[in-house]
């Protein structure tokens, strides 16, 4: 399988290890700034919603985490597919690093969605199609992580979990639309779907800031975790023993 040259260069673990080393802080600090700005804007500057009052502010944390939970699963499946096709150890490292972060954001989306449901529906848990899909997504993440760690040989765990992620990502839309059909046949006339209300620009820009902030945060976090995964997978490589020699504070 032919690979463009720059991908080869980026794909070489030591090269990627050095890049992620200095790039991670450059992603994390702007992310923290954006998130701080987004929180402030979302809580204070944005006007209250005429229907839900201030309750709607929860979308500022719920929507970014829900968006990231799906994005990260897609990225994880893509990395796993690259790993399986081109046998690139780095791709497996990216998939293994992305999984826990994705699981955390899915959990966050679930919790914030449930808390948002309390004022809206009066109960913490409502089998709303989106929340149900998030719950299933969490199971897919947990399945990936537990399968990967149930093999002694890391390469075997990577390949098995990677295949599961690819099968999972193909199934995700099917599961999502089945859940939507399933909830639609119970549709009472007065359903209150978990919809972001019609959103004006004053409400929208904090949301976009937070989505960008969360994404940069994920990217920085991912690079850090990928460093750990790369070190573990390349533990026998010469470049690892080089930078790990006592007295050298490298990497």
């Amino acid at each position: 399988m032919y690979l463009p040259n720059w991908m080869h260069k980026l794909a070489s673990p030591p090269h990627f290890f050095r890049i992620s080393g200095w790039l991670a802080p450059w992603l994390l600090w702007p992310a923290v700034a954006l998130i701080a700005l987004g929180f402030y804007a979302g809580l204070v500057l944005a006007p209250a919603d005429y229907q839900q009052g201030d309750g709607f502010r929860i979308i500022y944390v719920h929507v970014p985490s829900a968006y990231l939970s799906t994005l990260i699963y897609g990225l994880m499946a893509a990395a796993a597919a690259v790993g399986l096709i081109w046998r690139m150890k780095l791709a497996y490292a990216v998939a293994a690093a992305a999984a826990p972060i994705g699981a955390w954001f899915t959990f966050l989306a679930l919790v914030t969605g449930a808390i948002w449901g309390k004022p809206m529906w009066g109960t913490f848990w409502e089998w709303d199609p989106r929340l149900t899909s998030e719950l299933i997504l969490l199971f897919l993440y947990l399945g990936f992580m537990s399968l990967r760690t149930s093999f002694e040989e890391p390469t075997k765990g990577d390949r098995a979990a990677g295949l599961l992620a690819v099968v999972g990502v193909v199934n995700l839309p099917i599961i999502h639309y089945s859940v939507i059909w399933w909830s639609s046949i119970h549709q009472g006339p007065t359903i209150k779907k978990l919809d972001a209300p019609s959103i004006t620009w004053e409400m929208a820009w904090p949301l976009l800031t937070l989505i960008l902030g969360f994404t940069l945060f994920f990217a920085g976090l991912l690079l850090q975790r990928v460093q750990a995964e790369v070190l573990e997978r390349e533990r026998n490589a010469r470049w690892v023993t080089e930078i790990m020699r006592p007295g050298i504070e490298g990497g």
Partner: protein
Amino acid sequence: MGGYAPYVWSTFGITLVVLVINVITAKRRLRSVREQLKLRVARDARRRSKE
């Protein structure tokens, strides 16, 4: 904040906690892998120097 204060603050609070947890676990994971490898390389070096 109307009657929603507890809900809004709790969601933002939980979000901050989760973000911080992620940062800490990522850093700790990297440090533990690095230390394990350092130990390993040092032990190999010692064993090789004995041979």
